[in-house]
């Protein structure tokens, strides 16, 4: 290594920071500006936050399946304050639901997924030494960490965490008199999210600049791996939409503390007649969903990008329709900005505007369908190697289909009326956004773990993890669709009210709720395989080789040991697109991007 570094020094005088091997602990592991370390920091934080959010979901699932029954498990985590006698309190049920949603959507699937893999793969796959600004990158992570901490703290305060649902619609979220979680809990939520948004903006700007400016020689935009295209468009979506959420949050903060009336009008709460007049709760919903819908794709696109790469590599085939895939990503990204109103069909918004949103929303199905068909054709006549990463990527395509098709029902305003805010919606977005993005994230971790930690994960444990997760997750969300079609509203603490008007539906809902909870517990326990595998392999896993998956992209041309600047010598030069797998006339079944075209060889795209 030393010799290599020396050589590098000779070749590339500007990169003499390779020599700084005697870094202190703090600058190497804590306030690191290296994209690889920051990526690992994101991953660790995300794993922790994901575990918390999963635990919260088990807690409220226990209440839903066995309402009113005393549970030692609830007492263990919530104590006598929130689960007196082992029975969950109504308000805390809403608190758990709210924080579960918030952590999963923002901290795990936005911060965690994008943060981990954009940081890891953007410099690696475009052939850059690091992010455009290492300092902003570090700042972005530490703001993410701070916001995660504040969100966690809000779980432990006396009046409980935010309880207005993850969408925190005012007036409920603005009035502490309406629910106790709208006091300090909501202030912490808003503070945490504001910091999170700042973190996300710093990160996204950095990703955009890096992709545009730091591509190595020969790395044209049309030679970028689809992962990078996905991260790039994701970052643009984030930059354009997160500030709108920030403004929504700031206006809400002002309504809460400065006496303004952006969202409040004609309210009497807790016996008190408020003076606020002229505001509109619908304004908040417009602002929230202007972020909220692109957010779905901020969560989903990176997962789709990762799976494109993994499916191509492990099918030993080029991704089918590379340009169409890029086109789909761009189309989805663009359309995601003009569909937010489909969350608001029954809010009192003008029905004509509703019909415009029906049109734009259903259009998104076209690029999504193209993506699915391209995945299928990539698998067709491939030579599949079913690594755990590949299994999760195939699982992602399955959930993307299963969850996507129900979106057609919900996008159709006339049908949405009947199932809006029921468990049908909950099932839909958990499958299409939750499962898909989580599967994408797992696929990414299994695939790039060697690159991150220089070790191999245990494959058998990976298989066990995948099958338990797939069965558990479908076991949770298939029945949930039927609960929704029976009309069961979401965010209900229990369904005893059904006993008063429709005992048949009540029985069905209760039966299915037990099934769902049992599968949820199985899936949650199954994550033990992953956790054990992950930490055990970091410590004691077998050492990896440079290119374990025989892949074409640039990250696999870097040494296993992490070094500053990624490549010991000069930056690699790119000569071809990233998907030359099983190209006829080649000796190996993959040709790395750094291999020049042979004479007379045509470049595919």
């Amino acid at each position: 290594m030393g010799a290599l570094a020396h050589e590098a020094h000779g070749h590339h005088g500007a990169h003499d920071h390779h020599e700084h091997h005697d870094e202190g602990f703090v600058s190497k592991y804590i306030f690191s500006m290296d994209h690889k370390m920051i990526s690992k920091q994101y991953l660790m934080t995300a794993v922790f936050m994901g575990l918390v959010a999963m635990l919260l979901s088990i807690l409220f699932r226990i209440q839903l399946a066995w309402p009113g029954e005393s549970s030692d498990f609830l007492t263990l985590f919530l104590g006598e304050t929130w689960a007196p006698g082992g029975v969950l309190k109504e308000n805390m049920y809403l608190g758990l639901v709210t924080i579960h949603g918030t952590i999963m959507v923002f901290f795990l699937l936005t911060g965690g997924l994008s943060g981990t893999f954009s940081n890891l793969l953007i410099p690696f796959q475009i052939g850059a030494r690091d992010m455009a600004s290492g300092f902003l990158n570090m700042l972005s992570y530490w703001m993410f960490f701070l916001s995660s901490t504040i969100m966690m703290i809000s779980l432990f305060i006396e009046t409980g965490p935010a309880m207005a649902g993850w969408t925190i619609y005012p007036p409920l979220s603005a009035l502490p008199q309406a629910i106790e979680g709208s006091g300090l809990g909501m202030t912490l939520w808003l503070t945490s999210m504001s910091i999170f948004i700042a973190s996300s903006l710093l990160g996204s700007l950095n990703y955009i600049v890096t992709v545009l400016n730091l591509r190595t020689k020969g790395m044209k935009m049309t030679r970028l791996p689809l992962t990078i295209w996905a991260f790039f468009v994701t970052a643009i979506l984030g930059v354009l939409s997160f500030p709108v959420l920030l403004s929504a949050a700031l206006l809400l903060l002002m309504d809460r503390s400065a006496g303004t009336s952006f969202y409040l009008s004609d309210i009497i709460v807790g016996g008190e007649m408020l003076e606020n007049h002229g505001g509109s709760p619908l304004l908040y919903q417009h602002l929230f969903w202007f972020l909220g819908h692109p957010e779905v794709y901020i969560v989903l696109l990176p997962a789709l990008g990762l799976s494109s790469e993994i499916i191509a590599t492990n099918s030993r085939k080029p991704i089918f329709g590379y340009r169409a895939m890029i086109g789909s990503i761009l189309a989805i990204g663009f359309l995601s900005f003009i569909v937010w109103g489909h969350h608001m069909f029954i809010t009192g918004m003008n029905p004509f505007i509703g019909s415009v949103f029906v049109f734009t929303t259903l259009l998104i199905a076209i690029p999504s369908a193209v993506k699915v068909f391209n995945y299928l054709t990539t698998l067709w006549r491939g030579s599949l190697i079913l690594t755990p990463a590949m299994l999760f990527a195939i699982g992602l395509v399955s959930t993307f289909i299963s969850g996507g098709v129900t979106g057609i029902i919900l996008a159709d305003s006339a049908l949405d009326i009947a199932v809006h805010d029921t468990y049908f919606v909950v099932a839909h977005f958990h499958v299409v956004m939750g499962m898909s993005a989580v599967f994408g994230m797992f696929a990414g971790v299994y695939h790039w773990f060697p690159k991150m930690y220089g070790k191999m994960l245990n494959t058998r444990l990976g298989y066990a993890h995948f099958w338990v997760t797939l069965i558990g997750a479908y076991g949770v969300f298939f029945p949930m669709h039927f609960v929704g079609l029976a009309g069961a509203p979401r965010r209900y603490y229990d369904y005893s009210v059904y006993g008063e008007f429709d005992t048949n539906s009540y029985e069905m809902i209760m039966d299915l709720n037990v099934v769902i909870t049992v599968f949820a517990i199985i899936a949650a326990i199954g994550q033990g395989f992953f956790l054990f595998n992950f930490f055990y392999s970091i410590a004691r896993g077998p050492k990896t080789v440079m290119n374990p998956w025989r892949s074409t992209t640039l990250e696999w041309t870097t040494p296993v040991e992490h070094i500053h600047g990624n490549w010991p010598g000069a930056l690699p030069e790119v000569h071809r697109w990233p998907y030359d797998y099983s190209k006829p006339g080649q000796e190996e079944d993959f040709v790395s991007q750094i291999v020049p075209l042979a004479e007379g060889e045509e470049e595919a795209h």
Partner: protein
Amino acid sequence: MSFKLITLVVIVLGILAIAQLVRVYELSSKLRNRREEDISNRDNKMNGNLMMLFSIIQYIGFIWLMLKYGWTGRGEAASVHGLETDWLLNLNFVIILIAFFATNSLLFYFSFKYVRKPGVKAYYFTHDNKLELIWTVIPAIVLAIIIILGLKTWNNITGESGKESIKIELFSKQFDWTARYSGEDNKLGYSDYKLTTQENELGLITTATLDSAIRLMEIGKLDGTVLGIQLLEEKLNNPKNIFVPEELVKMENDLDRKTRLLRLLVQMQKRHNKKMDARAFDDIIQKDTLHLCVNKEYEMSFRAKDVIHSAYFPHFRAQMNAVPGLVTRLKVIPNMTTQEMRIKKKNPKFNYVLMCNKICGGAHYKMKMIVVVDTPAQYKAWMKTKTNFKDVFLAKPVVTPATPVDGAVVADTSMMAVK
């Protein structure tokens, strides 16, 4: 305690067991010189087979759920628009189920079929414009059909209701619903939240309710349950009372706020036209159940007192949010009486319902109102038993005196300006 101990023991033993298994596995891999990244053909084949097996089990489970619980667990729709919605829902379900089964089957079949086999190389296939055009155009055509049919239904559902439609208001607050029938004139009286008192929960505007609201704001209730401006001032000015600073600030703020609200009320009173009283006075307020007449068109409007609620009639396939500061609406024509539906469902206890379907606080899940759809004769008979707002309001004893107690506070805007 014992539970915690057992949990802990199980977790520790579990981790140890996995660790041992992994250790054994690693040693055996080492012996056979096998590396983690090399997936053996056996593992590959096993996972491919599992993919196929999974898809079959998944389909069986799904079809079983569908047969057992049906596409709409709510049963048949009970409104004219609901029937149209259900028809469209069924059509859409057929389309998405075809897409679901076709693509998922291909996915799992390919994952099974094309697992790596020795000597078989993957087929280098980068793109095909014709294929891609086909699967762009086909979804586009299908979606066009879905959009057109969907918007047609949407326009029918959200369009204006007929002139004959019966006006009803549903008023929501944490955590119940109140219905208001428009009475003989079929016109809902005007309302304003500032007029809300215990006797006038919906804040209806009439000369009498204005008077009583103003008196309440000026004075309050003499039993001290509601503090108006006068009672607040008395409390503040009483040298015997000692307040902690926070309480004092709160009361002073309260006083200022009530003074400003009073001014608005007085302005409203000055502009009030007595002729409008009748419009509100003949309204009928109904708390526990909502009675509707079968095959009549209803124009419903919604108001909320505190936070957003959502009026959800699952059986009518109708839903609309109730938003503070905004009046929202929907129209519905129930087409089956409760009795008919009970026979159809073979459940003599069945009832229609109005549920709250927007998170609104701790007891959100209890916020509902039973809905009864009557035959015209039943409906008429039921309506006869009801008393209109005028009789209810004026029959209540006056809780605040007609004239101020000490004459110090007069309903006069100039007075307010001095304050």
